[in-house]
């Protein structure tokens, strides 16, 4: 009897030891940061997307990303052609052990194609027509695949951005058009069971390619704001505003590093607390994180 009690206790101690924290420094890291506020058509212009990108670029540098490894483009510089050049530049320098972050702030949209499938787009600057600067979910995935890093993080502050993340293997309990309520657990469990035996659908950014954190669901609008409801200055996209605060406020285990899950959890809880309870059900939105077993230290 004593033997079993002692071995049980030893086992629990051993388990704790095996899960103790080792050095979480993410090592060599690179980032491409794009923000477009000044689209060619006056009707499409945004207020703070370029500022978002500039602020995120500075944040990354202040958190240990070498200045040479952080490429920031805004407005007229942030074109599709330029993105491909920047991706190629990083692809030549990064290794499989590097951390790579792609950040985008600007317009996003969801369109239904003729076959009934939904496709999401982000819009980089185009000198003639904004629609020409669109990058679809599949296209962005192909572009990101050029980067050899195993650890990639994609941060999207745009409408409908949740549609960029692959919905495998996890079934999201938050509906794509979140209106304040979660999906039915039993129905989600049934969907998860069926999905286990289904083939993986290509098209969005799969969990094997990157951890994606999106400002809102595939069918949700996201916003930028001058002030919050308590009259605090925001002057950013709402998602980006909390992302910028994550290094000082999201470190749940106080290890000095912020992971994708810590950032996501913090941004989501702040949006629920400071925004969604003041907005109508049609206006609420909730950040999403892609499904997969990985959690990555981002800064």
């Amino acid at each position, binding site marked *: *009897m004593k033997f*079993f009690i002692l*071995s*049980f206790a030893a*086992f*629990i101690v*051993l*388990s*704790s030891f*095996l*899960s*103790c*924290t*080792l*050095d*979480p*420094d*993410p*090592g060599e890291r690179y980032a491409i940061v794009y923000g477009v506020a000044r689209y060619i058509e006056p009707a499409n212009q945004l207020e703070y997307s370029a500022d978002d990108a500039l602020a995120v670029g500075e944040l990354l540098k202040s958190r240990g990303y070498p200045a040479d490894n952080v490429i920031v483009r805004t407005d007229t510089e942030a074109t599709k052609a330029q993105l491909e050049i920047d991706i190629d530049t990083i692809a030549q320098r990064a290794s*499989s052990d590097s*951390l790579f972050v792609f950040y985008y702030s600007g317009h996003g949209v969801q369109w239904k194609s003729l076959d009934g499938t939904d496709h999401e787009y982000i819009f980089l600057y185009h000198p003639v027509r904004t629609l020409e600067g669109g990058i679809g979910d599949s296209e962005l995935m192909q572009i990101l695949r050029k980067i050899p890093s*195993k*650890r990639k993080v994609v941060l999207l502050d745009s409408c409908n951005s949740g549609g960029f993340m692959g919905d*495998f*293997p*996890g*079934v*999201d*309990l*938050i509906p794509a058009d979140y209106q304040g309520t*979660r999906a039915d*657990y039993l129905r*989600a*469990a049934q969907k*998860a*069971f069926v*999905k*286990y035996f289904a083939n*993986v659908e290509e098209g969005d950014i799969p*969990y*094997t390619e990157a951890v994606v954190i999106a400002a809102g669901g595939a069918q949700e609008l996201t916003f930028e704001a001058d002030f919050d409801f308590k009259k605090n200055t925001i002057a950013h996209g709402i998602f980006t505003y909390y992302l910028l605060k994550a290094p000082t406020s999201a470190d749940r285990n106080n*290890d000095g*590093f912020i*992971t994708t*899950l*810590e950032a*996501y*959890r913090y941004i989501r809880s702040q949006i629920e607390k400071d925004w969604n309870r003041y907005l109508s059900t049609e206006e609420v939105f909730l950040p999403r*994180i892609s*499904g*997969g*077993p*990985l*959690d*990555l*230290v981002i800064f």
Partner: protein
Amino acid sequence: MHIISNFALFAILVSAVPAFSIDVSHSLSSRGTVGISRMEGFDFKTQGGNSIELATLLEWPSFAISGILGMHGAEATNLGGGWGYRGYEGAHARLQMEFPLFSGIPSAGGVSTEGIPAGDSMPEETESRERPRSGSGFVAGWGGGGGAFFSRYRETELLLFYPSAYTFLFFDWYTAFPRVRIRYTVPFEWYFRKDLAVSFSLGLSIGVVYTWTQPAGKGGK
């Protein structure tokens, strides 16, 4: 209404099973595990886990079948190298079979003592593969089965399903209370997760088993 009818079914089952030499038992157990995970392209990492399980056992003298419902959780791994595997939690169900391999019955539990001279006792360990039906003693054996898991990554609302296969060694310690025994198990479980290339766990569990049917008296069976 459902509860009443289910309870009635259970009562009928319990009252009927002695005729078939079946014991009906329930167990409540707690398990600690060390999980080993690896995603394609990444290294192995360990994560501590735990679960609590409620089982219904149908026990024949030489084998048993159990249905199990439980809740589980696993801590996130360390973040060494700037990455880790997410923690998760959820609910699971298992179906298993088990076989006693040997038993130690110091006071003739389950075996007639008639004909043994006073002062003598049964051997410390018998070759019996049957369970003692009363008194103290132990039974050790092995088993195996399959499970179905629904887990949610911690800090997210992402739910995933995966099946498992597992085997275990068990050690039942029969107490002075005829209906109660303490059960230790050493389970090894392989999870067929689509998000991980390799995922398995080793553990230890401790539980209490309560037998509803009236165990046979000394010399019975």
